[in-house]
């Protein structure tokens, strides 16, 4: 079981054609392989080298996506701030 590469653990849901990604150590199922890899690194110990590497990759991709999200959130905050400032200025 431990020498199985993560993707052979993936099943195909016959009904929807979507692939499920199982955790080999517990009963959790994930919609995406990188979610499963993150889960492995966060919740389980004694991972195989392949799992360790997959976790590191998923973690890095997650950080990048988070950085982009932060910029978007900041942009949204600034826009909201200015809209409110203008609304207040107009209503005074």
């Amino acid at each position, binding site marked *: 079981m431990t020498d199985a590469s993560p993707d052979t653990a993936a099943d195909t849901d016959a009904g929807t054609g979507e692939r499920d990604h199982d955790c080999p150590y517990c009963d959790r199922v994930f919609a995406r392989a990188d979610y499963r890899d993150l889960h492995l690194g966060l919740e389980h110990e004694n991972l195989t080298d392949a799992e360790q590497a997959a976790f590191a990759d998923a973690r890095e991709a997650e950080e990048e996506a988070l950085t982009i999200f932060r910029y978007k*959130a900041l942009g949204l*905050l600034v826009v*909201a701030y200015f809209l*409110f400032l203008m*609304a207040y200025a107009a209503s005074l």
Partner: protein
Amino acid sequence: MTDATRRVARAVAALLAAALAVSALVGRALAHGGSIGQSAGRSLDVPTWLFLSTGGAVVGASFLLSTFATDRAFVSRIHAYRRALAAPRTDLFATAGRAIGLLGLATVVAVGYLGPSGPLQNASILVVWGGWWAGLAMSAYLFGNAWPVLDPWRTLASALPTRDRDPAAVLPVSVPWLSTVGLLGLFWIEIVSPLADAPRLLATVVVAYSVVALSGAFLFGDRYFEEVDPIARVFRLYGAVAPLTYDDGIQLRVPGSGLEADILDSRGEVAFVVALLWGTTYDGLVATPPWATSARAVVKVGVPATLLYPVALVVGFLAFYGGYLLCVRYGARFADTRRDDAEFVRRFAPSLLAIAAGYHVAHYLGYFLTLAPALVGALAAPFARGSVSTLVLPGWFGGLSLAFVLAGHLLAVWVAHGVGYELFPSRLQAVRSQYGLTAIMILYTMTSLWIVSRPYVAPPFVG
């Protein structure tokens, strides 16, 4: 400083700066929007829509800001923080608490029947509404839940025989739903009956409630208080918000961190939480001028006034509950997950308790402080018919209630953030899972800010 802590420090600094900027805006809205503090005569007046959207935006912005706290270790450290407090002679305090509870029940019944009939002179009215439903409930979420010790029915029941049956096996309906219906019933009685003005009636209701509670305890033992009794459930849920917990000795924790745990077992318990939130909202809603106007219009058309209140209570509950289910389920789609919708519904619902606590304190703190001197006076001389002293609160106090409503929502956003991190391996998933929840929270905020900022008028057709 490690990289992680520096990132956290930066995030916290950004959070504070933005919160200050936003609160500068809200501060102006609070000062000039709405009618609290009779600001109509001032030169600056913010239209209601802008005031409400500012309140909603504060909740939305705090959600965005919470997404900047991305250090898992930091988030879980805050939520898992516990500090044991030395508690000398807890047994002594518990015995004293039980005695106080019994004495309170005896006072409410005896003074209710025999004491003065003026509501502000009668200790029974003041103990129930000022001391218990306002004061003790506030202490449950601000400090910790003392009700299991004070609960006079639990104390009485512990001395009486019991059959110790399982409520779920005996009752033909779902126990948490029964409890939810009971809670809505209590809200209905509280609003439509003159219980706050008629001490004799209040004492009768308390006696009736005692009969129900003691029969329940006879059948189910302690499980009556743990599963069926709506009042014990309200206090237990409010206690989950509090910074003190008694599960394992007395422990200090960050307020709201008790809401992160999986504390609700079923859909019915989620319904109970929503009923608590809605009941507190409804309590405020029926005392607004627009409600009075529309209630009169509806009754004029021919709808009986006795039907109006319970129907509105149930319809509003269904709207709040349906809105919550819809938003959380719809929001779960953004998270791209294989987890069960039912799990999100259960796990995110406790965050609503922080909001309910915020509404409750907004609604009752002023009431409690106003009545506190009268309560003390009435307890000191329960059968005297002397003059009543109440506290006159300064005009700015009304503005505080808006701050409490917002504070409850901000705590709820933070709780939901922690729950999301616990449920999902990816932090972006966690953020996305909260889109729907944040939307319904913004709606709840705007509703309650609108209610709190209306002037008080006595509800028509009641009492």
